[in-house]
Protein backbone atom coordinates (compact mmCIF):
# COMPACT_ATOMS: atom_id res chain seq x y z
CA UNK A 1 0.00 0.00 0.00
CA UNK A 2 1.45 3.33 -1.00
CA UNK A 3 1.97 5.92 1.71
CA UNK A 4 -1.08 8.11 2.00
CA UNK A 5 -3.43 5.61 0.39
CA UNK A 6 -5.62 5.19 3.40
CA UNK A 7 -8.50 7.15 4.87
CA UNK A 8 -9.12 6.96 8.61
CA UNK A 9 -11.90 9.05 10.10
CA UNK A 10 -13.61 9.24 13.51
CA UNK A 11 -16.80 11.29 13.25
CA UNK A 12 -20.29 11.70 14.76
CA UNK A 13 -21.93 11.92 11.32
CA UNK A 14 -23.35 9.00 9.34
CA UNK A 15 -21.45 7.68 6.31
CA UNK A 16 -22.51 6.14 3.02
CA UNK A 17 -20.90 2.91 1.81
CA UNK A 18 -21.55 3.65 -1.89
CA UNK A 19 -19.95 7.07 -1.64
CA UNK A 20 -16.85 5.66 0.04
CA UNK A 21 -16.44 2.80 -2.45
CA UNK A 22 -16.93 5.18 -5.41
CA UNK A 23 -14.24 7.47 -3.98
CA UNK A 24 -11.82 4.52 -3.82
CA UNK A 25 -12.44 3.53 -7.44
CA UNK A 26 -12.47 7.00 -8.94
CA UNK A 27 -9.75 7.63 -11.52
CA UNK A 28 -8.01 4.26 -11.26
CA UNK A 29 -8.18 0.95 -13.12
CA UNK A 30 -5.69 -1.16 -11.17
CA UNK A 31 -8.21 -2.23 -8.48
CA UNK A 32 -9.66 -5.70 -9.08
CA UNK A 33 -11.55 -6.14 -5.81
CA UNK A 34 -13.08 -4.08 -3.02
CA UNK A 35 -14.28 -5.88 0.11
CA UNK A 36 -16.32 -3.88 2.61
CA UNK A 37 -17.89 -4.28 6.04
CA UNK A 38 -20.50 -2.11 7.74
CA UNK A 39 -21.30 -2.63 11.44
CA UNK A 40 -24.77 -1.54 12.61
CA UNK A 41 -26.30 -0.68 15.98
CA UNK A 42 -28.76 -3.41 17.02
CA UNK A 43 -31.96 -3.10 19.06
CA UNK A 44 -31.05 -6.08 21.26
CA UNK A 45 -27.96 -7.15 23.23
CA UNK A 46 -27.36 -9.64 26.07
CA UNK A 47 -31.07 -10.47 26.17
CA UNK A 48 -32.49 -6.99 26.64
CA UNK A 49 -33.75 -4.24 24.38
CA UNK A 50 -31.43 -1.38 23.44
CA UNK A 51 -33.04 2.00 22.76
CA UNK A 52 -29.82 3.80 21.89
CA UNK A 53 -26.08 3.64 22.49
CA UNK A 54 -23.37 6.22 23.04
CA UNK A 55 -19.86 5.63 21.74
CA UNK A 56 -17.01 7.24 23.65
CA UNK A 57 -13.40 7.24 22.43
CA UNK A 58 -9.90 8.45 23.31
CA UNK A 59 -9.19 11.26 20.84
CA UNK A 60 -5.65 11.01 19.53
CA UNK A 61 -5.05 7.41 20.55
CA UNK A 62 -8.02 6.27 18.47
CA UNK A 63 -6.54 7.66 15.25
CA UNK A 64 -3.09 6.34 16.19
CA UNK A 65 -4.43 2.83 16.89
CA UNK A 66 -6.51 2.71 13.69
CA UNK A 67 -3.55 3.89 11.60
CA UNK A 68 -1.32 1.23 13.20
CA UNK A 69 -3.74 -1.59 12.46
CA UNK A 70 -4.29 -0.48 8.85
CA UNK A 71 -0.50 -0.30 8.41
CA UNK A 72 -0.26 -3.79 9.90
CA UNK A 73 -2.80 -5.01 7.30
CA UNK A 74 -0.77 -3.30 4.58
CA UNK A 75 2.35 -5.15 5.69
CA UNK A 76 0.55 -8.53 5.58
CA UNK A 77 -1.27 -8.17 2.25
CA UNK A 78 -0.68 -6.28 -1.00
CA UNK A 79 -3.40 -3.64 -0.63
CA UNK A 80 -4.16 -0.71 -2.91
CA UNK A 81 -6.34 1.38 -0.60
CA UNK A 82 -8.11 1.19 2.78
CA UNK A 83 -10.91 3.28 4.28
CA UNK A 84 -11.94 3.06 7.95
CA UNK A 85 -14.72 5.25 9.35
CA UNK A 86 -15.91 4.89 12.95
CA UNK A 87 -18.69 6.94 14.45
CA UNK A 88 -18.85 8.35 17.98
CA UNK A 89 -21.67 9.92 19.96
CA UNK A 90 -25.27 8.76 20.36
CA UNK A 91 -26.57 6.19 17.84
CA UNK A 92 -29.99 4.57 17.39
CA UNK A 93 -30.78 0.97 16.42
CA UNK A 94 -30.19 0.55 12.68
CA UNK A 95 -27.59 3.31 12.54
CA UNK A 96 -24.26 2.44 10.92
CA UNK A 97 -21.36 2.42 13.44
CA UNK A 98 -18.26 1.40 11.51
CA UNK A 99 -17.15 1.00 7.90
CA UNK A 100 -14.08 -0.83 6.60
CA UNK A 101 -13.40 -0.99 2.85
CA UNK A 102 -10.29 -2.61 1.39
CA UNK A 103 -9.17 -2.42 -2.23
CA UNK A 104 -6.72 -4.90 -3.77
CA UNK A 105 -5.79 -6.45 -7.08
CA UNK A 106 -7.70 -9.63 -6.21
CA UNK A 107 -10.44 -10.71 -3.80
CA UNK A 108 -8.25 -12.85 -1.54
CA UNK A 109 -6.30 -10.04 0.05
CA UNK A 110 -9.32 -7.72 0.11
CA UNK A 111 -11.52 -10.21 2.03
CA UNK A 112 -8.75 -11.23 4.43
CA UNK A 113 -7.54 -7.70 5.21
CA UNK A 114 -11.11 -6.44 5.75
CA UNK A 115 -11.78 -9.16 8.35
CA UNK A 116 -8.35 -8.67 9.95
CA UNK A 117 -8.90 -4.91 10.33
CA UNK A 118 -12.32 -5.43 11.97
CA UNK A 119 -10.99 -8.12 14.33
CA UNK A 120 -8.08 -5.90 15.42
CA UNK A 121 -10.26 -2.79 15.65
CA UNK A 122 -12.59 -4.63 18.06
CA UNK A 123 -9.77 -5.41 20.48
CA UNK A 124 -7.29 -2.53 19.98
CA UNK A 125 -9.06 0.72 19.08
CA UNK A 126 -10.10 2.71 22.18
CA UNK A 127 -13.88 2.94 21.76
CA UNK A 128 -16.45 2.10 24.45
CA UNK A 129 -20.20 1.55 24.07
CA UNK A 130 -22.81 2.50 26.63
CA UNK A 131 -26.31 1.18 26.00
CA UNK A 132 -29.67 2.65 27.03
CA UNK A 133 -31.96 -0.23 28.02
CA UNK A 134 -35.47 -0.26 29.59
CA UNK A 135 -33.82 -0.84 33.00
CA UNK A 136 -31.21 1.91 32.67
CA UNK A 137 -27.81 2.59 31.17
CA UNK A 138 -25.02 0.02 31.08
CA UNK A 139 -21.46 -0.12 29.74
CA UNK A 140 -20.96 -2.97 27.28
CA UNK A 141 -18.46 -5.59 28.51
CA UNK A 142 -15.64 -6.78 26.25
CA UNK A 143 -16.25 -10.22 24.78
CA UNK A 144 -13.88 -13.17 24.93
CA UNK A 145 -15.04 -14.09 21.40
CA UNK A 146 -13.55 -10.81 20.12
CA UNK A 147 -10.19 -11.71 21.69
CA UNK A 148 -10.22 -15.16 20.07
CA UNK A 149 -11.21 -13.64 16.70
CA UNK A 150 -8.20 -11.30 16.88
CA UNK A 151 -5.93 -14.10 18.11
CA UNK A 152 -6.54 -16.05 14.87
CA UNK A 153 -4.33 -13.52 13.08
CA UNK A 154 -1.29 -13.86 15.31
CA UNK A 155 1.46 -15.40 13.23
CA UNK A 156 3.02 -18.33 15.11
CA UNK A 157 6.69 -17.69 15.98
CA UNK A 158 9.36 -19.11 13.64
CA UNK A 159 6.97 -19.09 10.70
Amino acid at each position, binding site marked *: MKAGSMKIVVQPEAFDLGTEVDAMRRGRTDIGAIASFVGLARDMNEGSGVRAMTLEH*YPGMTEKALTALVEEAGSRWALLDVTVIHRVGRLLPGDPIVLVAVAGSHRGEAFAACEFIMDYL*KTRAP*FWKKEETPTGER*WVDARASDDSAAARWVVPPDQ
Partner: protein
Amino acid sequence: MKLRVLYFARLRERFGLAEEEVELNGTTAADLVAQLQARGGVWAEELAAGRAFRVAVNQDVVALDASLPDNAEVAIFPPVTGG
Protein backbone atom coordinates in the same frame (compact mmCIF):
# COMPACT_ATOMS: atom_id res chain seq x y z
CA MET B 1 7.72 12.41 38.34
CA LYS B 2 4.76 14.36 37.07
CA LEU B 3 2.11 12.61 34.91
CA ARG B 4 -1.09 13.59 33.17
CA VAL B 5 -3.56 10.77 33.84
CA LEU B 6 -6.78 10.26 31.85
CA TYR B 7 -9.73 7.97 32.61
CA PHE B 8 -12.32 6.73 30.15
CA ALA B 9 -15.78 5.11 29.98
CA ARG B 10 -16.87 3.19 33.10
CA LEU B 11 -13.72 4.16 35.01
CA ARG B 12 -14.21 7.86 34.28
CA GLU B 13 -17.75 7.61 35.65
CA ARG B 14 -16.80 5.54 38.71
CA PHE B 15 -13.90 7.86 39.63
CA GLY B 16 -15.93 10.97 38.81
CA LEU B 17 -12.85 12.28 37.04
CA ALA B 18 -11.77 12.52 33.38
CA GLU B 19 -8.25 13.83 33.90
CA GLU B 20 -5.79 14.82 36.61
CA GLU B 21 -2.14 15.58 37.27
CA VAL B 22 -0.41 12.98 39.43
CA GLU B 23 2.96 13.27 41.17
CA LEU B 24 4.18 9.65 40.99
CA ASN B 25 6.40 8.18 43.68
CA GLY B 26 7.82 5.42 41.48
CA THR B 27 8.77 4.65 37.90
CA THR B 28 6.38 2.10 36.36
CA ALA B 29 2.73 1.78 35.34
CA ALA B 30 2.33 -0.71 38.21
CA ASP B 31 3.64 1.94 40.64
CA LEU B 32 1.01 4.38 39.37
CA VAL B 33 -1.78 1.80 39.70
CA ALA B 34 -0.63 0.99 43.27
CA GLN B 35 -0.57 4.69 44.20
CA LEU B 36 -4.11 5.15 42.84
CA GLN B 37 -5.35 1.97 44.60
CA ALA B 38 -4.05 3.38 47.87
CA ARG B 39 -6.70 6.13 47.66
CA GLY B 40 -9.19 3.41 48.70
CA GLY B 41 -12.92 3.34 47.85
CA VAL B 42 -13.76 3.02 44.15
CA TRP B 43 -10.04 3.37 43.30
CA ALA B 44 -9.12 0.27 45.30
CA GLU B 45 -12.16 -1.56 43.95
CA GLU B 46 -11.77 -0.82 40.23
CA LEU B 47 -7.98 -1.21 40.14
CA ALA B 48 -7.83 -4.34 42.31
CA ALA B 49 -5.80 -7.32 41.09
CA GLY B 50 -7.89 -9.40 38.73
CA ARG B 51 -10.01 -6.47 37.52
CA ALA B 52 -9.85 -5.92 33.75
CA PHE B 53 -8.37 -2.57 32.82
CA ARG B 54 -5.77 -1.34 30.35
CA VAL B 55 -2.99 1.22 30.71
CA ALA B 56 -1.75 3.31 27.78
CA VAL B 57 1.37 5.46 27.89
CA ASN B 58 1.55 8.27 25.35
CA GLN B 59 -1.34 6.56 23.53
CA ASP B 60 0.12 3.06 23.26
CA VAL B 61 -1.16 0.20 25.44
CA VAL B 62 1.63 -1.09 27.70
CA ALA B 63 2.23 -3.88 30.23
CA LEU B 64 2.15 -2.91 33.91
CA ASP B 65 5.93 -3.27 34.25
CA ALA B 66 6.49 -0.55 31.61
CA SER B 67 8.57 2.45 32.71
CA LEU B 68 6.87 5.84 32.53
CA PRO B 69 8.68 8.83 31.04
CA ASP B 70 8.40 12.12 32.93
CA ASN B 71 5.39 14.20 31.81
CA ALA B 72 3.84 11.15 30.12
CA GLU B 73 0.18 11.05 29.16
CA VAL B 74 -1.11 7.92 30.89
CA ALA B 75 -4.62 6.60 30.30
CA ILE B 76 -6.45 3.95 32.31
CA PHE B 77 -9.56 2.41 30.74
CA PRO B 78 -11.72 -0.72 30.53
CA PRO B 79 -11.20 -3.28 27.73
CA VAL B 80 -12.42 -1.68 24.49
CA THR B 81 -15.85 -2.38 22.99
CA GLY B 82 -16.02 -0.51 19.66
CA GLY B 83 -16.82 -1.76 16.18
